[in-house]
Structure formats: structure tokens, C-alpha cells
């Protein structure tokens, strides 16, 4: 047994000079040996804090032990008890703010925490390569509709199918996966991985109907009539714009459009695929979250010479994952801290030629506890740009909600649902994920999907008892 190393076992990556020019996955994954080495760093705590800090409460020491003992089948079994999408979580969860943040090993100054996310990915990828025989389950406990095939909906669907329900998932776009498909780029989350995990959920008997816009193609009333219960996991779903002058210039995008064109529509493979993107030389990205990083790094890969991120606070407040930030810096993404755009400048044909910015300073903390950025008068300057991408967050999409006013929403337009049960104002309708919380993380959305599945099971069983009596 080698001595426990201070640092995480490094994961091989595509070199920055190379990966800047392709959309292939950056992090290449552990092999079994590397995985075992990393697994041996785990202290196997009895009252493991990592479990409590996982939104779906995965038995982390449990699956890590199986890796160490070279029992991948056993490791898979442990993971499958808690998550339907481990290959996705292993890649995109903010482990540094969850399980790895409280890892006991990492609490000592010398040691980095165990690379829990990377180990999860190892098991999940192994699992996809060694598919299990699917066990025949009868789906006769009831019929449940799931609206939205993102992480929340898929999790609820998988769990309900395992519990014996007939499950139909309605997806508005042509491909299932929600944000996993249209939002997170290939280089961070390969679409093949997403598809494989979805295929496994389908193999459990879940039916996915694409091209179905609930509220348009099918109404909530029809769903309520046909199904015993329904889970709404449609995501936040509509982009915000800053609304500064020049927003309608060509070359100005919401990150939602930019990323959808690339990921869902394969814009980076134009003209082999039909959906284009405007070629860009100088790109400005506005925002500091993971979506901003994804947009910036995609722009680089599409051939932009300069990509500059404008963030109105300082590096300390950057909400993006540290890992993504580091990757972006390696890929030559520039940062303009304490900077906010005030106007898009137009060329002769209504196209963007520059972004007029203003410097900010941090004032008193606001309701969120973060220091409020304030503009510094007279500090305006222009960043030349032919493309600007706003990644400043999303609001609630109204398409379905407008057709179903019975469903209570809060003052931001999100669906009101009980945090502990996902129950909404309408009996039999449950909701979770970003449409309840506003934009959050994949794993939190999955957590809500898990709760909903359990509650829906209870609700349907109770209802059947009362109706038979």
C-alpha cells in the first residue's frame, strides 16, 4: 500500500493548446489503477460528512471502498441506489462546495480532499461500458407524467419506474436531456454520455415523448385526466437580458441561444449541420457563472481570437466552479473584473462593433450578503467586440404556466412548491428543480426529482386506498 498522497490523483486532460480548437472532452477520466490509488486515500469515516453534503445522499465511502477493493460491480450497485445519472453528476456537480468541501481528509491542512467526483465518474463510465441485464419490472402501480426531461425530470422518472409506475416524460425539444443537452457543452459533458444515461432510464421502461410542448401540443387538463400524478421539472427556461441600448444588434446573444445553437443544434459542425453561428473575432461574455464560462470557452473553440469575460464583482465573488475558471484561464480567456456593460455599439449595418463598459467598485453587502457593485462615474471604456453573449441568468418560462393559472407561483414567477415534498397548490401536481428555485445546479434539481418520486408514490398509493374504500 503506497503512502497516502497529499494531493488528489491527477486526472489526465487534453492540453490547453490542443483543446482550444476542439469540442472534445477536456478531462479524460481515471483508469482503474488511478481510481484505486485515489480510492485508497479515503479515510472511510463512520459518520461520513460527505454523505450529508450530497443532495442525493450517496453512500460515498461505500462506493469508494468497492473501487479500492477492485469490485466495480459492487461500486455500481451502491451508486445506482442513489442516482440515475452518475456519469453526469461525476462531471458537472460542484463537489468542491458539497461532498469534497467537508471531506475529513481535506480538513487537515496538508491534504486535498478525496476526488469524490472523479471517482463517481470512473464508476459511472465503467458502468456504461458494462451494461447490466435489465430486470423486468411491471409498471402497474399507476401512471405518472413528467414534464421536462432535464436532470430533475429524468431522476424522478427513473425512480418512479423502479417503483413500478408507468412513466411518460414530455420534452419540448427534439432531444431529451434538457440543460444537459442544450446547455452544457460537449467538452465538459459529452452528449454521448448524456444519451447513454438516458437510454438506461428508458431501458427501465420510461417512455420519452419529444416535440411535446405542454400547454401547446398537450394541455395540463389532458395530462391530469390521463395520469394519476404529474411532476413539473421544466427548468427556468427563459433568458434575461440586461436591456442596455443596442440589445437588438446582430452579434448580441443570450447565452441560452448561443449554447443551444452549439450544443443542441451542432452549430460548431456547420455546414454539415444546418444551424449556423456568426463567425467571431472578438467575443465578450457578460456574467460570472458556469454558463458564462461555457459560453466563453465555446467561443474560443469556434475560433475567436480574443474572448473577454466581464464580471461586475471581483474574482473572489465569481460564482463559477473554480475548476472551470482555471480551465478557462488555461485556454486564454481574459477577465475584466469589476466591469459592467452599459451599451452595445453599432456598426453601419446594425452589427455589434464594441461594448461600452463601466468600472465598478464594491459597496455595502446586499440581501444576498455579497457586496453590491456600484458604478464609478466617468470610468467608461470600450471593448471592441463583434459578438457579445449575455449569461446573466434566467427567469420562469411562461408557456406552460400561462395555460394553467390554477398553479400558484411566487413573486418571481416560479412555481410554489413545498421544499420537503415538492407538492404544489394543485393536488397531484408536484414540481421541483429550477422552475421552483430559479437557476441552480444539476444536482439540486436531481435531489428534488428524488423527493418528488417518493412523494408521488405516496400520493398515488393513498389516493388508490381512498378511492377503493
Amino acid at each position, binding site marked *: 500500500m503506497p503512502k497516502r498522497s497529499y494531493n488528489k490523483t491527477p486526472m489526465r486532460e487534453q492540453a490547453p493548446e490542443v483543446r482550444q480548437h476542439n469540442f472534445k472532452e477536456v478531462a479524460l477520466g481515471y483508469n482503474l489503477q488511478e481510481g484505486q490509488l485515489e480510492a485508497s486515500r479515503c479515510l472511510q469515516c463512520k459518520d461520513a460528512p460527505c454523505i450529508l453534503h450530497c443532495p442525493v445522499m450517496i453512500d460515498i465511502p461505500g462506493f469508494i471502498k468497492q473501487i479500492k477493493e477492485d469490485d466495480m460491480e459492487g461500486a455500481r450497485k451502491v451508486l445506482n441506489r442513489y442516482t440515475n445519472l452518475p456519469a453526469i453528476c461525476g462531471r458537472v456537480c460542484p463537489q468542491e462546495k458539497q461532498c469534497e468541501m467537508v471531506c475529513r481528509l481535506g480538513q487537515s491542512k496538508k491534504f486535498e480532499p478525496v476526488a469524490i467526483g472523479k471517482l463517481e465518474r470512473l464508476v459511472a463510465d465503467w458502468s456504461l461500458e458494462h451494461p447490466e441485464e435489465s430486470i423486468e419490472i411491471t409498471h402497474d402501480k399507476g401512471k405518472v407524467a413528467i414534464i421536462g426531461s432535464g436532470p430533475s425530470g429524468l431522476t424522478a422518472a427513473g425512480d418512479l419506474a423502479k417503483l413500478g409506475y408507468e412513466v411518460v416524460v414530455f420534452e419540448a425539444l427534439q432531444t431529451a436531456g434538457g440543460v444537459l443537452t442544450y446547455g452544457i457543452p460537449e467538452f465538459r459533458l459529452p452528449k454521448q454520455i448524456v444519451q447513454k444515461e438516458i437510454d438506461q432510464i428508458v431501458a427501465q421502461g420510461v417512455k420519452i415523448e419529444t416535440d411535446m410542448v405542454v400547454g401547446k401540443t398537450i394541455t395540463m387538463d389532458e395530462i391530469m385526466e390521463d395520469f394519476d400524478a404529474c411532476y413539473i421539472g421544466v427548468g427556468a427556461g427563459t433568458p434575461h*437580458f440586461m436591456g442596455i441600448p443596442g440589445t*437588438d444588434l446582430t452579434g448580441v446573444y443570450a447565452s441560452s441561444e448561443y449554447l443551444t445553437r452549439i450544443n443542441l443544434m451542432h452549430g460548431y459542425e456547420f455546414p454539415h449541420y444546418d444551424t449556423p453561428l456568426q463567425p467571431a473575432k472578438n467575443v465578450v461574455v457578460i456574467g460570472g457563472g458556469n454558463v458564462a464560462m461555457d459560453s466563453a470557452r465555446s467561443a474560443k473553440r469556434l475560433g475567436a481570437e480574443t474572448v473577454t469575460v466581464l464580471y461586475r464583482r471581483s474574482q473572489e465573488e465569481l460564482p463559477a466552479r473554480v475548476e472551470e475558471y482555471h480551465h478557462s484561464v488555461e485556454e486564454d480567456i481574459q477577465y475584466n473584473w469589476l466591469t459592467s456593460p452599459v451599451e452595445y455599439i453599432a456598426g453601419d449595418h446594425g452589427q455589434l462593433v464594441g461594448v461600452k463598459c463601466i468600472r465598478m467598485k464594491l459597496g455595502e453587502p446586499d440581501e444576498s450578503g455579497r457586496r453590491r457593485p456600484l458604478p464609478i462615474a466617468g470610468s467608461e471604456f470600450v471593448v471592441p467586440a463583434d459578438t457579445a453573449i449575455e449569461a446573466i441568468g434566467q427567469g420562469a418560462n411562461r408557456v406552460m404556466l400561462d395555460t394553467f393559472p390554477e398553479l400558484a407561483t411566487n413573486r418571481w414567477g416560479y412555481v410554489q412548491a413545498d421544499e420537503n415534498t415538492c407538492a404544489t397548490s394543485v393536488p397531484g401536481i408536484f414540481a421541483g428543480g429550477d422552475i421552483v428555485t430559479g437557476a441552480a445546479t444539476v444536482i439540486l434539481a436531481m435531489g428534488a426529482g428524488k423527493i418528488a418520486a417518493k412523494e408521488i408514490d405516496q400520493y398515488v398509493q393513498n389516493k388508490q386506498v381512498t378511492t377503493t374504500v
Partner: protein
Amino acid sequence: MFKITERTALTDNEYQIWLEAPRIATKAQPGQFIILRIDEQGERIPLTICEADASAGKLRIIFQVIGKSTAQLAQVKTGMSLLDVVGPLGKPTEIKNYGTVMLVGGGVGIAALFPIVKGLKQAGNRVITIIGAKSKNLLILQEECAKYSDELILVTDDGSLGRKGLVTEAMADVLQREPINQAWAIGPSIMMKFCTKVATQFNVPIYVSLNPIMVDGTGMCGGCRVTIGEKIKFACVDGPEFLGAEVDWDGFIQRMRQYHPEEVTAYQAYQVKQVH
């Protein structure tokens, strides 16, 4: 999969297809559109629903070849299937009895106008319809529009049929002649812009149907945004119909040209491939 049950060439570059989409056909209302995708590599193409036959579960779509995707769509054969059809999208036209209404259609926009003409007639309006095209053989849906109009005025640029000139001139004559309670215009952006101008001169409210570049068509991407009365609106969910007087036409027309170079590249490459 969505089966094409009929495909007809209406003019040199305008085509009509009927396709099977039973769920959409039962829900579709005048003014709404679908988004379709021909195959795995295909774009999401927004097209207005010209007619929905709920009992047969079919939709009628009329489109003009303007680039690669529509050229490819024009090549589909009866019996073939489209990979994706989604809808009905957008807000429907408010069909009610306004009194006397005026409907103006230009080019392929007549196909989008037709269900509104029909709906308004059935709602008891006195319907005056003006349809125009470059020349006689490009003027589509004449008979069907006539069937649902109290008065139908045909206009061609070259005078080969009906009035010679522009639809706006015919509009002005009618507006001078009698009071109109509500107007609609659907056609090329420039035409809608000028129809708005004429209607506004006579203080008649006019709706136009905007067809900006779209991706999802469900309010998710913001690509279809238009400035309406100084506010950002998404044409796919807040529209496609807006009051013409509130539209920022210059901004709208600019955004329509956003992918022009790419569209040309794709179309040329497609044409070369078709020849070989």
C-alpha cells in the same frame, strides 16, 4: 415521425405540403405556427400553419424556397416523413367580431393570412381582403381567399392580374372609401412596415405577423426577440402577432439578415451537391 401525405408545387418556388400531425391539428388556431426539422442535421424551421384538418389529423403548410433548408423541404416526396414537427406555437390571432376588417397579404404571406381571413369571416366580420404578388402566376390562394371574403382585391406588381402596383395603394383606396375597425398585414417585412404606415395614417389599428430567426420557438433562447413599444418581446411566445405601430422595424429587418452570409454558403453548397 410525421408523414407527408401530399406535396404540390404552387409556383416556381412556392410549395404546399400536407402532413400528418394529429395532436397539433386538433389544437392549431389561426395565427399559430409549427417548427419542423427535416432530418438529423436539419435546422428548426418555423412555418405558419395555413390550415389544420383536425378530423384527418393533418396540417397544411405553404412555404417559399429561400435557402438551403426550404430548398431541401421542397424536395420531399409524398410518403416521406419529417423527423420533427412541434406546435402549435405562438399566440393565436384574436378571432372575434370586430365589424369590418381588412386583411392584406403579400407573397407567401398569403398562406399565413388565409386562416385568419377564414376565421374572421366565420366570426361574422365583413371581410375585405387584399392580396398581392409580383405577377399573376405567383398569386396564391385566390379562390380560397375569395370564398371567405366579402371583397377580394388582387394586386400584382406588373399588372398581369388585378390592380397594377402595390398592396398599400389598394389599402389606401379602401381606407378612403369606408371605415375599417381592424386590419392585418402579413408578408415581407418591408411590406408590413409600409402597410403599418398607411393604416396608421387612417388611424386604423393593424396587426402584423413577425417571423424573425428562431431556434426553439418556446421562449427558451431569446433569439427571436423584437423591440415592441421599447420593450424586448419574444416573437415565438409573445407573438407572432404584434401591433404594427409598436414594432421597431429597422431593428427587426436588421436582425433578419444576421446569418445572411452563412445562409448563402449553405445554399450554394447544397445546390452544388444537387447538381452532382
